[in-house]
């Protein structure tokens, strides 16, 4: 194979989410090694595009990868804010990009405002928070309804990283909370690098906040939040969406994470478990299903698309890949499922109605709610998947 | 011989100021260096004190070669230097400055003895012992600098222009205190603009011009020397 196809992998390889970047890198390398970096008579050259968790730097790096390294397609991405800015770059250079995790509404709205232009920003790897984050509140409401937990008053607070993701997830919690009769004490968004939350948490405690819901994509920040939540003596329920987005979170929270809620897909199939073992053996860390796992599925789905494009056109470049994306992926013709070797979700499937999101639901793409104890998560929601009942501290 | 300077060449960077300067001072002597501005008097002192390392030549003190030693090492050998710029510790009090002068002395009671001695010489300093050195007037600072130089009980004192900026009365008292030191067996090398005064108080003198020793001899003789009279006293 003497033809080369440069592919950009966008991720936070340095900066506060570097751990997730590591997981991306492992997934991509493993998936590529499995096909020996070849599709048809093309050798795939992986170009790492470091977003550094900053939209401006990411856009610059992406443009440079296009101009300098000539990438013909791109895959993955961690942050919404980055997605919002890189979408334009992809559109400007007409480079198809698949499976970015930038989830928030801002991405969808932007996409829907000009589907033609943003057809280069292919199906996302993560749906808008409203589709999944509301599950927490639904779960909590059930718990209150069946009497497992009786909060003194229905006072909640929302926290999150100050990014499109944090705010958008915060918005989803707020809506769901207000709808079920909670009062919101305050909403706090902090820089993605913050690790000192004592003042903030003490404030919540003294206000008598019973339910604290929020998220962060930066592991150091969220693990610190969880740990300090326990330390200052908060007694309520903590939703820490994303704690499990790095596999080794327990090394950083310790028992502080007991009783915390999170929503993380599980490694259920033997392939999935094997994959996790392989990663541990080769890279020395426990991968997170939501980060390493999803990105592994993402890159493998992308390879499937490449194969398809090669099959149809005999040629791989930005146009052929884009065509397949538009014609077959976004229409739901080409999907990636357990049958293809997906390890995390049952099926990754896009339809014109849901674009740029995928089809969400227990049979397709879904996150159960877990409660942690001693470093292990147990599914407490939905009912069918339940492993344990919700427990109060 | 207490101090012997031989063929000293020194300067700043590439700029040579001193050319083959040689001096000898015996124990207990009171020696003066006179010369016009920029002759290199201060440079000579700085070189002896170890603040400038010489290009060539040697400095022997108490039979020990101290050429090229650092300033602090020289100070530990018993040479104290009262510089023209005074180099006080501006954010320390008068008393702290004086204690620092006795840095090489470890015993507390010896330090206090020296302190009393200095306060006796300069009652003004005693009055102001808690004032920060940086807030003192020019003349007060000069006193403090001299006082600090005396604190280490040196065997040789290099004193650069002690009367610079001092009121007549104080000038008199500074010279008087130098006399006291001489009587206490301290050796003094004095640089002073006031040629008449210098030659009147010292026993021996050197005339430095353009970085070279021009004349040397008994102070009394020098004062009578016609060249000195013509050049320095304008007679």
């Amino acid at each position, binding site marked *: 194979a003497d033809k080369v196809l440069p592919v950009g992998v966008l991720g936070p390889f340095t900066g506060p989410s570097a751990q997730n970047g590591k997981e991306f890198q492992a997934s991509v390398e493993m998936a590529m090694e499995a096909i020996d970096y070849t599709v048809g008579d093309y050798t795939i050259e992986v170009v790492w595009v470091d977003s550094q968790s900053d939209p401006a730097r990411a856009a610059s790096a992406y443009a440079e990868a296009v101009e300098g390294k000539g990438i013909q397609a791109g895959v993955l991405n961690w942050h919404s804010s980055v997605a919002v800015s890189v979408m334009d770059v992809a559109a400007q250079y007409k480079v198809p990009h698949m499976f970015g995790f930038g989830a928030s509404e801002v991405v969808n709205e932007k996409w829907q405002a000009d589907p033609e232009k943003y057809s280069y920003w292919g199906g996302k790897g993560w749906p808008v928070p409203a589709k999944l984050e509301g599950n927490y509140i639904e779960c909590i409401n059930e718990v209150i309804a069946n009497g497992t937990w009786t909060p003194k008053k229905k006072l909640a607070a929302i926290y999150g990283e100050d990014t499109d993701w944090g705010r958008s997830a915060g918005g989803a919690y707020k809506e769901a909370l207000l709808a079920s009769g909670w009062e919101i004490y305050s909403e706090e968004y902090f820089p993605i690098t913050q690790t000192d939350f004592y003042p903030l948490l003490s404030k919540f405690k003294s206000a008598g906040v019973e339910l604290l819901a929020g998220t962060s994509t930066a592991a150091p920040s969220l693990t610190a939040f969880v740990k300090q939540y326990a330390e200052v003596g908060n007694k309520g329920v903590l939703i820490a969406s994303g704690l499990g987005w790095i596999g080794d979170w327990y090394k950083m929270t310790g028992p502080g994470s007991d009783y915390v809620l999170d929503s993380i897909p599980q490694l259920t199939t033997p392939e999935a478990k094997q994959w996790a073992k392989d990663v541990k053996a080769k890279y020395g860390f426990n991968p997170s299903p939501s980060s390493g796992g999803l990105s592994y599925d993402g890159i493998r789905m992308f390879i499937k698309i490449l194969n398809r494009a090669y099959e149809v056109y005999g040629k791989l470049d930005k146009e052929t890949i884009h065509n397949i994306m538009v014609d077959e992926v976004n229409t739901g013709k080409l999907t990636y499922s357990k049958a293809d070797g997906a390890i995390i979700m049952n099926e990754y499937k896009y339809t014109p109605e849901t674009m740029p999101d995928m089809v969400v639901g227990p049979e397709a793409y879904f996150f159960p709610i877990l409660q942690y104890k001693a470093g292990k998560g147990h599914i407490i929601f939905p009912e069918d998947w339940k492993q344990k009942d919700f427990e109060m501290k | 011989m207490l101090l012997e300077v031989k063929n000293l060449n020194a300067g700043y960077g590439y700029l040579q100021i001193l050319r083959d300067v040689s001096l000898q001072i015996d124990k207990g002597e009171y020696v003066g260096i006179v010369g*016009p*501005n*920029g002759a290199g008097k201060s440079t000579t002192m700085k070189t002896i004190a170890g603040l400038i390392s010489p290009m060539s030549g040697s400095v022997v003190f108490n039979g020990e070669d101290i050429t090229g030693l650092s300033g602090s090492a020289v100070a530990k050998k018993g040479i104290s230097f009262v510089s*023209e710029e005074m180099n006080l510790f501006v954010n320390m009090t008068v008393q702290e400055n004086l204690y620092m002068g006795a840095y090489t002395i470890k015993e507390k009671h010896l330090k206090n003895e020296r302190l009393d001695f200095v306060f006796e010489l300069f009652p*003004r300093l005693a009055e102001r012992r808690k004032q920060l050195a940086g*807030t*003192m*007037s*020019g*003349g*007060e600072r*000069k*006193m403090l600098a001299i006082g600090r130089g005396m604190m280490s009980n040196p065997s040789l004192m290099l004193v650069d*222009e002690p009367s*610079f*900026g*001092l*009121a*007549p*009365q*104080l*000038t*008199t*008292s500074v010279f008087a205190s130098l006399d006291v030191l001489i009587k206490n067996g301290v050796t003094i090398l004095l640089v002073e*603009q*006031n*040629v*008449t005064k210098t030659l009147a108080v010292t026993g021996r003198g050197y005339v430095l011009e353009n970085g070279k020793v021009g004349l040397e001899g008994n102070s009394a003789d020098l004062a009578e020397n016609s060249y000195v009279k013509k*050049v*320095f*006293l*304008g007679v």
Partner: protein
Amino acid sequence: MIVLETQNLTKKFGGLTAVNAVSMTINQGDIVGLIGPNGAGKTTFINAISGLNPPTSGMVKMFGKETTGLTPEKMCRLGLSRTFQIPSPFPKMTAIESVMTATIFGNPAGKITDPVAHSREMLEFVEFPMKETVVAEQLNTVQLKRLDLARALASNPRLLFMDELASGLSEGELKDIMRIIDKISKKGISILMIEHIMQLIMAVCNRLLCIQFGTKIAEGPTQEVANDPKVTKAYLGE
């Protein structure tokens, strides 16, 4: 004509009264010597007048106008120049550039047509012993004081303060400085000079002001003050 007048000028530093209610006058053409023991407050006194360290209370009147607390740059443009006890050069500038600052900025706009020539003239006037292109940081104290003087004169002052200009001069050099002071005075500039060298004071000053502990103890014609027993006791010694 009265060039400068102070009334009860006082300057305090925290608890210390460095200048205590000093009133004095300088007449046109005077060369006033300001003497006093070290730490008497002489430098502080002229700093208070020239604006570098504004007075705590009291009044300053220059050329008939009240100027209490004006900034040094305003005072300079009004015609007051000064030199510093501890030379205060522009370390990286050449001699001629240093003088040009005052030529250009110290004069009311437009007066000097050729600043370079004027500055050169000033350096010659003070008999500056070095080349005009020498950089200030390479000068020694005495040369710096000359440069300082040239800078002070470059703004064409009507009143000049000199703070210990002659310290560190040999007897021979004192003669030069006397001649220069004489030339300055001939230009019609009134002078207030702080000095410890009595030889110089007695030779050039027509009036003396003596302060001690910040308080004026004598003011008047030179001989009279010099013979004043209070002054003898406080300052000159026996």
